[in-house]
């Protein structure tokens, strides 16, 4: 495992818990807002909580958008969490139309306001929900979810959800009132998690540990 993990700090979100979780998994988190450090990192985590437009503006203002793209293009393992996962996509419809990093084809849309039964449900989707293999998978061999059994519950809090253009990029979904919401995506060395592994107890730590342990093509 590469010991140094760059946690990309673009001014949004609680990065403390991500750093603690990485440290608990035996790696050395380096919180950084410097494009040079991001380009040079062996492994990257793009965390984040908040609005898509603010997140992208925070990345661009620091030149971190290009640095993250360059690291991803160089094959470095990249893990996006929550907003960090949504920013991997080409665009988002959160409060207008905004361009993302474009590392995974598809877009980010609002969670539909009602469930499959047509009844309104609560937004944001907050709480623990089980992971369901997606994209034609029956399990998660070869991905950072590999330590989890299907139906393992993890912690979500989000109002928007990614809609990947390529079905094969879907790693996992969850069921919210009969709707299938994208929970994890993977495309080559780039992996995104809608849920918070750093807040999902032992199951979440197992996902982070697997990401830290995986090769560049893992995912």
């Amino acid at each position, binding site marked *: 495992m590469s010991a140094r993990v760059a946690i990309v700090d673009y001014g949004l979100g609680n990065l403390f818990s991500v750093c603690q979780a990485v440290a608990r998994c035996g790696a050395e988190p380096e919180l950084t807002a410097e494009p040079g450090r991001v380009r040079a990192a062996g492994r990257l985590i793009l965390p984040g909580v908040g609005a898509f437009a603010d997140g992208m503006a925070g990345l661009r203002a620091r030149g971190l958008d290009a640095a993250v793209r360059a690291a991803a293009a160089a094959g470095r393992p990249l893990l996006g969490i929550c907003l960090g996962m949504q920013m991997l996509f080409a665009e988002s419809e959160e409060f207008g139309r905004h361009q993302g990093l474009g590392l995974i084809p598809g877009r980010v849309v609002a969670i539909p306001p009602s469930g499959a039964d047509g009844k309104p*449900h609560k937004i*944001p989707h907050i*709480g623990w929900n089980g992971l369901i293999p997606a994209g034609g998978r029956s399990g998660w061999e070869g991905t950072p979810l590999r330590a989890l059994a299907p139906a393992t*519950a993890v912690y979500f809090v989000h109002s928007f959800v990614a809609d990947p253009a390529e079905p094969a990029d879907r790693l996992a979904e969850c069921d919210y009132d009969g709707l299938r919401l994208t929970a994890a995506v993977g495309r080559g060395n780039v992996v995104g998690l809608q849920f918070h592994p750093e*807040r999902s107890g032992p199951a979440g730590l197992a996902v982070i540990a697997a990401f830290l342990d995986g090769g560049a093509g893992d995912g």
Partner: protein
Amino acid sequence: MANVRLIARLDIKGPDLIKGVQLEGWRKVGRPAEFARRYYEEGADELLYMDVVASLYNRNNLTDIVAETAREIFIPLCVGGGVRSVEDADKLLRAGADKVAVNTAATKRPELISELSRRFGSQAVVLSIEAKGAGPGRWEARTDNGREATGLDVVAWARRGAELGAGEILVTAVDRDGTFRGLDLDLVAAVSAAVTIPVIAGGGFGAPEHLAEAVLKAGADAVAIARALHHQRTTLAQVRVRGLAQGLNLRRL
């Protein structure tokens, strides 16, 4: 149905975990971090820390306890008590909290809710309401552990809080708190019907059966359990098993 959360609530005074009856008459129970670790290991879906005397003394001293907890506990942590400004919230969130709960300061200056949700996102802002019965089907919002009247109607205040950008409502029945008689279902149902954001029901949880009635009869999205856990009247595992047997959608461990 959305997933239901079991939240362990720890009321804190100085360095100690305490628990009173009807939000008064505090008694020391032990060290917060020890209890927090126990509840994490027993499968709490979330933890809630409340500094119960912070607003009396105009201070917030939870930062150290939050940082200590966040180092070893990897579930969501909500912290409240004495949050009066964006800076207060920022300090707690940087120390490792995922959300802050506001009560007293928000009743005095409701725009605090908007300021917090604009800065940190509505998912990070919980409006905590202490509800005291004020006639049939009516409740008044109280502060300072139920002692101070605000003149605010609980249901109207919950609705206003949601409009201002709160991401969740924590409603605690002052008259039930620490009594183990069960949650105030009329209160929870009234608040739940008034808002489209998740409602956490607190005050009175005493037995595993109280979960299903709060969820199925009153529409609660989560329950906050304090004294029943601290005194081992029930455990999170018992509540979870009973809830699953009653058909609730809970995390399976």
